[in-house]
C-alpha cells in the first residue's frame, strides 16, 4: 500500500506539494488527477523515492521512502511521464538490464522478463530496438519495466499521454489487467480516463488535495453542473424567458444568437428539450458543453469553501485526515 502523510515538497521558495495526505489500500487502484503543474508528478516522484520530502512521510508497502529507500524501491514499479527509453537498446536487452538493476535473482530473470513481455503484449517486437517502435509500443515497454521484479506498488504517471485513441484504450486495458493484484496510483489530467480505470480518485490542484472520493460519487457531484448551448428558430427573448422558468435551470443568457443554459443535471436537460419540442420551436442546435478540467477544479474548490467544515467527505483540507 501507499501512505502519504502531510507531504510537503519545496524547491527553493517554490512549494510544489503542500501538506498532502492520502492513502492507497493494498490492491486498490486510485486515479490521481490534476491539471498540468498541479503537483502530480512531484508527488509521484517523491513516492518513487527520486527525492525525499521536505517534510512529512511517504511509505511504500510499509517502508519509509526516505529512511529505507532500498527496501521501498524493491516494492515499487514506476512509470515516468513521457515513458523515457534508451533508443539504441533492444526490448529484450533493455528488460534484461532492468531486471538486473531491480536485483531480480539471476535464475528468475528470464521468467520475469517472459512474464512482463506477455502481460504487456511485447512478444512481436522483443528483438527490435526500442527507438524504432511506435509510441504505443514504447509506452508498453515503459509499463513492462515498471512491472519487472513483481512490485506490489505501481506508480504510473500519465501512462496514456500523447497516444492516439486506440493506443490509449490498449494501454488502459493493460493497466486494468493489473488491478486487484497490485496497489496502483495512476495519474492523468483527463477525468473520464481515470474514472474508467480507477475505483477512487484523488484530485490535486496547486499542490493541495481538493477532493478525494469514489469515482461514481465524484462523477455524480460533477454531473450537477451541465452547460447547454441552444440554437432555435424562434424569438430568443421569448425562449429565454420560458426556459428560465424550467425547474432546475439556474441561468439563461444570450450569446451570439444562441442561448447558454446553466442546468442543474441531466433531468433538467430533458425538461428543457421537452419544452422546446412542446412549443414547436425548430431546434437547430443542442450541445452539451463538457467541463474543462480547470472548471472542475474551480467548482470543487468553490464547493469546498461553501461547505460546512465538519463534512467528512470534504477534503479541501487534506491535513484533516
Amino acid at each position: 500500500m501507499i501512505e502519504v502523510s502531510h507531504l510537503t515538497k519545496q524547491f527553493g521558495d517554490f512549494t510544489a506539494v503542500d501538506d498532502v495526505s492520502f492513502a492507497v489500500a493494498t490492491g486498490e487502484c486510485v486515479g490521481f488527477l490534476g491539471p498540468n503543474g498541479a503537483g502530480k508528478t512531484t508527488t509521484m516522484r517523491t513516492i518513487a523515492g527520486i527525492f525525499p520530502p521536505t517534510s512529512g512521510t511517504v511509505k511504500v508497502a510499509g517502508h519509509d521512502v526516505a529512511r529505507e529507500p532500498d527496501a521501498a524501491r524493491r516494492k515499487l514499479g514506476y512509470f515516468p511521464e513521457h515513458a523515457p527509453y534508451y533508443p539504441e537498446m533492444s526490448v529484450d536487452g533493455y528488460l534484461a538490464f532492468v531486471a538486473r538493476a531491480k536485483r531480480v535473482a539471476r535464475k528468475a530473470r528470464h521468467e520475469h522478463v517472459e512474464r512482463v513481455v506477455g502481460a504487456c503484449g511485447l512478444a512481436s517486437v522483443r528483438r527490435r530496438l526500442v527507438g524504432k517502435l511506435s509510441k504505443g509500443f514504447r509506452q508498453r515497454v515503459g509499463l513492462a519495466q515498471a512491472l519487472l521484479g513483481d512490485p506490489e506498488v505501481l506508480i504510473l504517471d500519465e501512462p496514456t499521454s500523447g497516444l492516439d485513441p486506440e493506443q490509449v484504450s490498449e494501454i488502459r486495458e493493460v493497466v486494468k489487467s493489473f488491478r486487484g493484484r497490485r496497489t496502483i496510483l495512476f495519474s492523468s489530467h483527463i477525468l473520464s480516463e481515470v474514472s474508467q480505470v480507477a475505483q477512487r480518485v484523488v484530485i490535486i490542484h496547486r499542490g493541495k488535495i481538493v477532493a478525494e472520493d469514489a469515482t461514481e460519487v465524484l462523477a455524480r457531484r460533477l454531473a450537477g453542473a451541465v452547460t447547454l448551448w441552444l440554437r432555435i428558430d424562434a424569438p430568443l427573448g421569448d425562449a429565454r424567458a420560458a426556459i428560465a422558468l424550467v425547474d432546475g435551470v439556474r441561468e439563461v443568457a444570450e450569446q451570439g444568437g444562441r442561448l447558454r443554459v446553466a442546468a442543474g443535471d441531466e433531468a433538467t436537460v430533458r425538461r428543457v428539450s421537452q419544452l422546446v419540442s412542446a412549443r414547436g420551436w425548430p431546434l437547430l442546435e443542442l450541445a452539451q458543453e463538457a467541463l474543462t478540467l480547470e472548471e472542475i477544479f474551480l467548482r470543487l474548490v468553490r464547493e469546498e469553501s461553501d461547505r460546512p467544515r465538519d463534512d467528512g467527505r470534504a477534503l479541501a483540507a487534506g491535513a484533516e485526515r
Partner: protein
Amino acid sequence: MLAVVQKELVTYFSSFLAYVVIALFLALSGFYFYTNLAFFLLNGGFDLVRGLWQYQFHDMLQRNIFLLPLLTMRLFAEERRLGTLELLWTYPLRDLDIVLGKYLAALIVFALMLAASAIYPLLLLPSHVDIAPGPLVAGYLGLFLIGAAFLACGTLISSLTDSQVLAAAATYAILILFWAMTWNEFAVGAPVLWILSSLSLFDRFYTFARGGIDTRDVCFLVLFSAVFLSWTLLALGSRRWRGVR
C-alpha cells in the same frame, strides 16, 4: 552496479561510439609511432626509453585529451535528455552504483583501447631489439591513470548538463586548461609556480613516460579521479533540493 556497467558497455558498442574512438586512437597512435620510430632511427638512437617511448607516450596522452571526452560526454547528459536518469533513480541502485557503473564502463573501453595500442611496441619484437618491459608498463600505467582522471572529469561535466555537445566542449576546456597550466610557469613567481605544478596533471606524466613510477604521482591521479567522482555524486544528489531537471 554491474548492471549499469553492462548496460553502458552495450550502449558504447551498439552506438559505434566505442569503435570510432578506438579506431581513431589506434590510427593516430599508429601514425605517431611510425614517425617517432623513423625519427629515432634517423638519429641513430640507442636508448629506447628516452629516444622512442617517451615521445610516443606523450603523443598518445595528447590524443587522449581529445578522444576521452567523446567517451564521457553522453554518460549522464544523454540520460538527462532522454529522461531515463529519473527511472534509474527508482531502481534499487544507489547513486554511487550509477556513477561508478558508468565510470567503470568508460574505463573498460579506455583500457581496451590502450591494450590494443600495445601492438605497436610488439611490432619491434621481430627486429631482435632488446625491449625492457618495465618502462612500457610504467608508461602505460601513467597513460591509464591520467586517462582515468580525464574520464572522471568528463563524467562530472556530463552530469551537469543535458547536452552532449556542451559536455564534450566543457571537458575539452578543462583538460586543455590543465594541459596549458604549466606552459608559461616561469613567467610567474615561485609560489604560483609551486601551486600550478602541484596541480598539473600533465607534469605528473614525465616520470611515467621515462619509465618510472612515483607513488606520489599515482596517489595524486587516483585522488584526482576520486574527487571528480564525488563531485559527480553531489551533482546527482542536487535533485533533492532542485528537483529533476
